[in-house]
């Protein structure tokens, strides 16, 4: 009887450390639904109890039910039938049914549609937990942003039609965006939306690489206007009826349980979501931000899963007469894996918290009756929105890259055994590979995040972080972080001065410095936490070593290693940025030569 929620000390700690009271109050709009719906909490304590109970239940389901099926799912995959329908792998179908029975398919949907009305932060935790059991299942469990997009932007009639079924787990959805010639650049979408004589909308064309394209409810980005570019696109919702065929199921490197479909729409009846022309610029942007947080959560789950195998192996595998974790190189790798995982989780949860804050402020602006409250919320929202716009791509970038590094290192720790299919590490590495690609590549996340790093948002946020209260034990680290902030500002100013192309060229370095500083402050905050929690120390046979230490002490050790090591890294990265080296632009042709012939 395992539990992927309760067996994770870091999640347990962060659940208590983060200010969930505030998140719960915003999410439940000051608990105004209590009494109106029998599951709506009456206060923050009750809401937090609800979050804890549901995560506990998902933790058990993930460990005992989903995880044992994951290997079979990877080997079996999904099947495309002759009639253009898809049959899920047995384990996926069973796990989806179990998740629906557990009432967790309407995680963030409002109470009135039968959802749990949980915040994004708690959803990120749930996605990590489920992904640790089976990353490919996340592509269905973690696609609840589709229902959320309908909730945010569609007419009431459409909401009433679709949302209760989503909440009950009777239907799943797909974000139908990508086309053969429109991947990262969605402005190039060509699938047509047109109206018949009665004004009904119909869809015609092809979409490719559609995750869960065999789902029942499809959100389709289509060209509804004569004009080119993003403003010619609108968002539509349709049912996957007889006019929608799955033409092809992709044969992929990883996430075999997630069906990736090519869809053909043959004059499919559909309904417009919100207003024409806002499809890409407003609705899909919002949808993608939610999905990016989902991918960050998926990456976390994968990294945690593979790290645990590597950690176990490092302790039990003996070479040269000792467990390999006694060897310096292996020791270092294991600590780095663990540190990266905690850095990713810290960044992701902070992002979840900020996104919840943004959603909560929007609710206040929509519903508050007195002008002053509205005005104050609008003022606060301005910065929070920009911060969310920076932190979301940052988290997606960091967590997905991290899961790739960690899953490769895990194989390295296992050596030859890691390369074999006897251990799940090779599967985790294959599954992790997509995370830096879909929902926007790492390169595009950096482009999105670097605007915030060089545009003042990051500076303001770092000033806020520096102003928080920290324990005496980490004041020297806070001083180092302040120095690092000065360096970052200098680099940002220089890069901006060199022009947009230069800023993008050194975007990765700029964003990496920003993340090192943000996570550094957040780790110092964790080391200063009021949460009283003891964590176990590894037993190395030395009776002098305590069996447990306070989590705050452990986090201080972590913060110290992280911040001091990053101080050197920041120096190196800043030298690269400040070098003014533009050879990438001017010497490309000479260095690369002509395009090679491929046989």
């Amino acid at each position, binding site marked *: 009887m395992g539990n992927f929620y309760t067996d994770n000390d870091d999640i347990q700690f962060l659940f208590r450390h983060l200010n969930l009271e505030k998140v719960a109050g915003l999410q439940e709009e000051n608990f105004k639904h209590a009494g109106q719906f*029998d*599951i709506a909490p009456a206060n923050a304590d009750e809401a937090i*109890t609800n979050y804890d*109970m*549901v995560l506990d239940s998902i933790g058990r389901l993930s460990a005992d039910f989903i995880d044992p099926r994951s290997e079979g799912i990877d080997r079996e995959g999904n099947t495309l039938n002759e009639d253009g329908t898809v049959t899920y792998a047995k384990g996926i179908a069973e796990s989806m049914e179990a998740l629906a*029975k*557990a009432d*967790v398919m309407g995680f963030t949907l409002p109470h009135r549609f039968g959802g749990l009305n949980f915040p994004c932060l708690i959803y990120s935790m749930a996605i990590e937990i489920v992904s640790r059991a089976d990353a490919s299942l996340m592509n269905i469990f973690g696609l609840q942003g589709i229902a959320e997009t309908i909730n945010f932007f569609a007419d009431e009639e459409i909401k009433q039609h679709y949302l209760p079924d989503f909440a009950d787990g009777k239907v799943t959805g797909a974000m139908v965006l990508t086309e053969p010639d429109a991947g990262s650049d969605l402005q190039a979408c060509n699938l047509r939306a047109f109206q018949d004589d009665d004004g009904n909308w119909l869809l015609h064309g092809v979409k490719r690489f559609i995750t869960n394209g065999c789902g029942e409810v499809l959100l389709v980005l289509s060209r509804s206007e004569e004009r080119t570019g993003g403003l010619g696109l609108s968002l539509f919702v349709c049912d996957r009826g007889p006019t929608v065929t799955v033409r092809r199921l992709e044969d992929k490197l990883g996430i075999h349980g997630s069906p990736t479909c090519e869809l053909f729409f043959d004059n499919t009846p559909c309904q417009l979501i919100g207003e024409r022309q806002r499809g890409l610029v407003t609705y899909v942007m919002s949808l993608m931000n939610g999905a990016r947080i989902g991918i960050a959560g998926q990456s976390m789950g994968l990294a945690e899963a593979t790290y645990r195998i590597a950690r176990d192996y490092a302790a039990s595998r003996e070479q040269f007469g000792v467990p390999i974790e006694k060897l310096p190189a292996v020791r270092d790798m294991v600590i780095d894996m663990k540190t990266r995982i905690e850095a990713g989780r810290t960044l992701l949860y902070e992002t979840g918290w900020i996104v919840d804050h943004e959603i909560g402020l929007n609710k206040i602006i929509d519903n508050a009756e007195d002008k002053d409250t509205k005005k104050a919320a609008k003022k606060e929202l301005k910065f929070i929105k920009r911060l969310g716009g920076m932190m979301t791509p940052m988290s997606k970038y960091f967590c997905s890259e991290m899961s790739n590094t960690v899953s490769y290192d895990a194989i390295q720790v296992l050596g030859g055994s890691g390369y074999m299919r006897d251990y799940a590490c090779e599967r985790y590495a294959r599954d992790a590979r997509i995370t830096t690609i879909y929902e926007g590549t790492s390169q595009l996340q950096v482009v999105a995040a670097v605007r915030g790093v060089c545009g003042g948002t990051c500076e303001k946020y770092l000033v806020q972080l520096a102003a928080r209260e920290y324990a005496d034990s980490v004041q020297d680290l806070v001083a180092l972080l302040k120095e690092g902030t000065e360096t970052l500002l200098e680099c940002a100013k220089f890069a901006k001065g060199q022009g947009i192309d230069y800023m993008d060229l050194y975007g990765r370095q700029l964003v990496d410095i920003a993340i090192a500083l943000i996570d550094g402050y957040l780790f110092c905050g964790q080391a200063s936490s009021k949460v009283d929690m003891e964590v176990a120390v590894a037993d190395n046979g030395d009776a002098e070593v305590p069996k447990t230490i306070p989590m705050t002490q452990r986090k201080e050790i972590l913060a110290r290693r992280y911040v001091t090591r990053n101080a050197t890294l920041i120096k190196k990265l800043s030298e690269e940025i400040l070098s003014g080296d533009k050879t990438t632009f001017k010497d490309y042709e000479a260095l690369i030569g002509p395009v090679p012939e491929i046989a």
Partner: protein
Amino acid sequence: MGYNCVVLVKQVPDTKRVTGQAMNDDGTVNRAALPAIFNPEDLNSLELALDIKDQFGGTVTVMTMGLPTATDVLRAGMYRGADQAILVTDRRCAASDTLATSYILSCGVKKLNPDIVLCGRQAIDGDTAQVGPQLAEKLSMPQITYAENLVSLDGETIVIKRNLGNGWQEVKGQLPVLLTVLDTANEPRVPRAKQMMKCKAARCRMEVEKAAKEDDSIDVDAVCSDLEAKGLLIRQWDLDFLGADMQWCGRDGSPTKVHRIQSVVLAAKESKEVEPTQDAVETMVHELIEDHTIG
């Protein structure tokens, strides 16, 4: 048509997590050292009952005998979809062995007039597997033990596939019937999020009274009627309500007498090499029989 099922559940110490502190000096279980859990096979019997309800309709009632702290397992039953929960609690139940327990439970079950009574095969604390069969006798119901699958159910009769360890057997029985269910029968469902959020507030009267002792503002009657209106009052039945005959309850009703409890610590002390010859092996087997290790 629907069937009314009663599932008898038990809160037990988690004996899979036995540590050095698991036993008190007097040989009794140190319940503080072991977390209290839902007896695993009772979850399988609950799952079978919920499955019957899902397929045919009807109701599922969870019942347990124990202290008010045992309501944890009743709530856990409600989280999974049980319609009502009953706590049989009375100081005079203390020290009941399996015979007395089955008598007391039979008094409770009779009040509900069920079509199907379900028990786990056995509880992991005592491992006797006696309560289910004894209960069936006291209820004068046919019993089908080691149930693994529901083959059919049609108004009057039930067909169950039993797993006997060395083979399977299909048994047809007349309703009302009592089943004891194996852990291989199914994979118990997890709690439903919405049921948890709603039913976490479910309490029995004694729990409300206890809270009222610490908080003067709690009006026990008002709280209980509010819980009842929301379907969240855990029914609390004592032996008087059950009309139980005291001579069959508690210590008086329990013929089991514990003679002695011994703490056995298994540790490898020494090893002995035995030559792979017929004689050496025979000598070893003889020695093992002598010291009662085998035989």
